[in-house]
């Protein structure tokens, strides 16, 4: 059994990193992700969001892997996540569903805000092989090495999405500032908090976000994503 842990600090606030994390597929660094589906989603009575996603990933087999060890080079991954918007924690666990006897890789990610408005990501990985035939250690080492070399890539992927999310947020702030002549109260209540938050990256804990604002932010973001 092999373990690996790493922590990483993002400059962006927790809500933006969490959003980007859930949006991370597709991204240019994740071409190995073939499909991603939500197969279960629940909102608990305390407001926690529980999600299960089924992801198909393409893997390259090492040259020393015996024929037939793994029937096909694709692997199903189950991702289970929990979001607590009040406590501001995202917990996410991914593990492969098939080929488990050959290698079972489990990745746990926790996203929490730091006191200075940044976000800390903690990643824990465990790799186990039950394959036997003298290959267990080699498989586990391979799995761990592969994970370590990919962790930089997955961070680049997340950073790409973070850029897009951040752009869309600042784009929205600019819109709020430059539409002082909007006829209804929506714009009026919008522009005051926008003025206060110009240049800031902290999340607004007290100003209630109007429904439409969320929608228009997503529209801008999806436009960015389509253009990307």
């Amino acid at each position, binding site marked *: 059994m092999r373990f690996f842990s790493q922590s990483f600090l993002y400059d962006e606030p927790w809500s933006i990193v969490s959003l980007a994390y859930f949006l991370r597929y597709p991204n240019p660094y994740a071409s190995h992700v073939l499909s991603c589906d*939500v197969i279960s*989603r629940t909102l608990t009575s305390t407001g926690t969001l529980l999600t299960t996603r089924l992801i198909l990933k393409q893997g390259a087999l090492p040259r020393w892997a015996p024929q037939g060890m793994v029937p096909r080079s694709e692997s199903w991954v189950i991702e289970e996540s929990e979001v607590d918007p009040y406590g501001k924690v995202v917990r996410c666990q991914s593990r492969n569903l098939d080929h488990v006897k050959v290698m079972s890789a489990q990745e746990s990610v926790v996203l929490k805000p730091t006191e200075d408005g940044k976000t800390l990501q903690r990643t824990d990985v465990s790799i186990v092989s039950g394959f036997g035939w003298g290959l267990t250690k080699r498989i586990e080492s391979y799995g761990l090495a592969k994970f370590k070399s990919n962790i930089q890539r997955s961070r680049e992927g997340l950073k790409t999405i973070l850029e897009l999310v951040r752009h869309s947020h600042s784009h929205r702030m600019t819109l709020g500032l430059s539409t002082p002549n909007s006829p209804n109260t929506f714009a009026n209540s919008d522009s005051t908090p926008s003025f206060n938050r110009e240049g800031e990256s902290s999340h607004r804990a007290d100003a209630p976000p109007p429904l439409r604002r969320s929608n228009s932010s997503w529209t801008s973001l999806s436009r960015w994503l389509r253009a990307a």
Partner: protein
Amino acid sequence: MAHSLSPECTPLKKEYDSCFNAWFEGYLEPAVAASASSAERAKYSKQKAEEYERNCGKIWGQYQECVQNAVKNRGLNDLLKQAREENPLREPPSSPPS
């Protein structure tokens, strides 16, 4: 990627994802202070849940019907059932910092 496991579900997935992501962005920045009472939070959570159901309930149903079918056809149900039984995430959510 941006695809569903079954190509016919992909358009439904994309429509659902758009709806969810728009709602999710607001969900991540609750309009209640961290110091709010649990009753206030419960009320706000209920509002958020209703908003989600209102906006995305229908497309979710359609998307799920398609996906669950595809999962069944691919013979993944047993694998999923096994994984669910070992699900370690079924712990109570963390309470907000005091």
